[in-house]
């Protein structure tokens, strides 16, 4: 298991290469996620109106982006009327400070947290731990990666890269389960006991937010395990952290999104719990932290704003043939896979310049996306931005310049010599030398006697 700090400086291709050294494991990872994709397909086919539902969701999200200012103000006002304290954070650092200051005021240090990709994006756990706060992730998968000191490798299935035997070992070490027991039923029961104690003794609960309703000021949190609900209902203080793009206009729009979310994510008809938090329990305090962290800037980009429609279902990861064969950590960003690859460069172009290239642009991601984000088109557009802004290596750039020159001069293209010579020297994927990655596991195509052009001139050219 590679920890986060080791992966930070390596690019996707290098990390994916490492992942691929254990081929049976790659096969296992691929098949496990493909199984989830198949479950998604099965669930979608149960709904004949599926494509119409996706289109509707997409249009609602477009409306949200066009009216975000109004919806945020309405949400804030409603939430305040519901007795909720609303906070605004411009960036990750401010988000972390706000959460910490809320915790600090209570004088309590034991915190439970349910799944929130926003807090992963902001590295909240690291921040709180550095301030002496004992924060425990309560989603089973997240708890597993937390015990292993790793980030999640998937936004919905955080430890999808872990084998049960390894989890058995991890639990033996940290929770004292018997050595060698790797039965998922048994390990889940052990985690239930371990985390129940935390729920009972943690007066502060942090949750993410799946949807926030502008009309009513309520937030909706979806889980299968019940960990968000248990954490919140046993707490004195509930802190819900959300990106500002989580808004939807009215409660009735949840009908569309809740039909799509779980089916797209895991193939379930709905998550076990879809909880609507409107007002805190009497005596309880509820805070909502609205986080920007680059989102308001991205809203101004015609090419990239649609990424803000994302509802974090993870379907694009499950279907991505590259993700399935490279693992979530190869993306070295809180959100892996295709959607992560279009979100990450917006936050840090230099650090994440490799990610839009970690794709064959096959387009499967855009087809499964429940809100119809043009993911693969954005990957293509990011490549253009990154190359123009100088985030692509100069060797590649010079090669491209040379290629562009030859390909725009037909005579040079022809004269470039005998058949195959030019292409095999300059086509980026066929560069013929001993270091050529093509030939590591593949034979080079054999050059024929004549090119098509030469054949045509000999045999077909009309006088």
């Amino acid at each position: 298991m590679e920890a986060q700090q080791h992966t930070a400086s390596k690019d996707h291709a290098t990390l994916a290469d490492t992942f691929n050294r254990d081929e049976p494991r790659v096969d296992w990872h691929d098949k496990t996620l493909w199984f989830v994709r198949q479950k998604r397909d099965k669930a979608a086919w149960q709904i004949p109106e599926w494509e119409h539902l996706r289109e509707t969701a997409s249009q609602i999200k477009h409306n949200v982006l066009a009216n975000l200012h109004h919806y945020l103000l309405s949400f804030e006002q409603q939430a305040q009327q519901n007795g909720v304290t609303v906070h605004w954070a411009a960036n990750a650092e401010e988000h972390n400070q706000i959460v910490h200051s809320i915790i600090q005021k209570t004088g309590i240090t034991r915190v439970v947290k349910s799944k929130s990709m926003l807090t992963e994006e902001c590295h909240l756990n690291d921040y709180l731990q550095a301030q002496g706060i004992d924060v425990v992730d309560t989603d089973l998968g997240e708890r597993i990666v937390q015990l292993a000191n790793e980030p999640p490798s998937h936004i919905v299935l955080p430890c999808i890269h872990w084998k049960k035997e390894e989890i058995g070992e991890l639990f033996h070490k940290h929770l004292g389960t018997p050595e060698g027991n790797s039965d998922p039923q048994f390990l889940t029961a052990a985690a239930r006991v371990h985390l129940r104690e935390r729920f009972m003794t943690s007066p502060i609960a942090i949750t993410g937010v799946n949807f926030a309703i502008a009309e009513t000021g309520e937030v909706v949190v979806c889980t299968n395990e019940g960990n968000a609900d248990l954490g919140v209902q046993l707490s004195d203080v509930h802190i819900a952290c959300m990106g500002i793009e989580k808004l939807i206009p009215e409660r009735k729009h949840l009908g569309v999104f809740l039909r799509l979310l779980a089916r797209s994510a895991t193939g379930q008809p709905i998550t076990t719990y879809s909880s609507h938090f409107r007002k805190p329990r009497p005596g309880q305090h509820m805070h909502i932290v609205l986080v920007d962290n680059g989102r308001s800037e991205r809203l101004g980009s015609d090419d990239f704003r649609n990424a803000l429609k994302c509802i974090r279902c993870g379907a694009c990861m499950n279907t991505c043939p590259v993700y399935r064969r490279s693992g979530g950590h190869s993306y070295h960003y809180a959100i892996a896979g295709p959607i992560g690859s279009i979100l990450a460069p917006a936050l840090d172009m230099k650090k994440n310049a490799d990610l839009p290239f970690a794709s064959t642009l096959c387009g499967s991601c855009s087809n499964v996306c429940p809100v119809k984000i043009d993911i693969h088109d954005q990957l293509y557009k990011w490549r253009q931005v990154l190359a123009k802004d100088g985030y692509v290596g100069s060797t590649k750039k010079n090669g491209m310049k040379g290629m562009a020159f030859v390909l725009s001069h037909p005579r040079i293209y022809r004269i470039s010599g005998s058949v195959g010579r030019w292409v095999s020297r300059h086509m980026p994927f066929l560069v013929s030398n001993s270091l050529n990655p093509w030939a590591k596991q593949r034979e080079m195509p054999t050059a024929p006697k004549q090119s098509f052009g030469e054949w045509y001139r000999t045999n077909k050219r009309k006088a």
Partner: protein
Amino acid sequence: MKVAIFIPCYVDQFYPQVGIATLELLEKLGVSVFYPEKQTCCGQPMANSGFEHLATSCNDLFVENFSGYDYIVCPSGSCTLHIKDHLHASANEPAAEKIRSTVMELTEFLTDVLHIKNLTAHFPHKVGLHQSCHGQRGLHLSQMSELVSPGFSKPQHLLNLVQGLELIPLDRTDECCGFGGTFCVAEEAVSVKMGKDRIADHLHHGAEYITGGDMSCLMHLEGILRRQRSTTKVIHIAEILNAG
């Protein structure tokens, strides 16, 4: 009907038989085909690497070569899609626009323009069809497994007209082969793994040939098959439709 063929650069240089089969097939079907001899490339290798802005003169050349035809037919879904989505010409945008709307992938042209209902082709083999992503998801040559929509497949329709050909089923009907242009070398490990997995699916179902509308995918799969010393071969769909 004035029809030009666009033979992608790597087909021109490495797989001339695919260009020849395309030309012969179209002529057999009564189309008079023009081959603009100054053609080179669609510009995709630059663009997919992020250097679309370096492809301007390549685009201009394309427009110069392919203006004035009713259709431009190309035996590659990927190159066709690139032209359709990204061909622009600052000096002559109307011409570029015309080309974008009249460029067609071969099987699409045969199905939608020529309305081919029968073929004389004969190919008595077990064949697996590899759907190139750009042909399928980009040009909608076949229905995509992700969508809840009725199925169809233009290449499959044509292959079903070939005598003796047995189309084998696949476990994953439209998973990417991992070629992906520069991806195939930049992400060598994943690219090859994807290719190996595609091949395993075809071999598992007894394919003697793997066919498809994109020689780039097939070149990648061929490279792996040959390294594995497999007896299974790749063959472009134009060669099958033109066989016998």
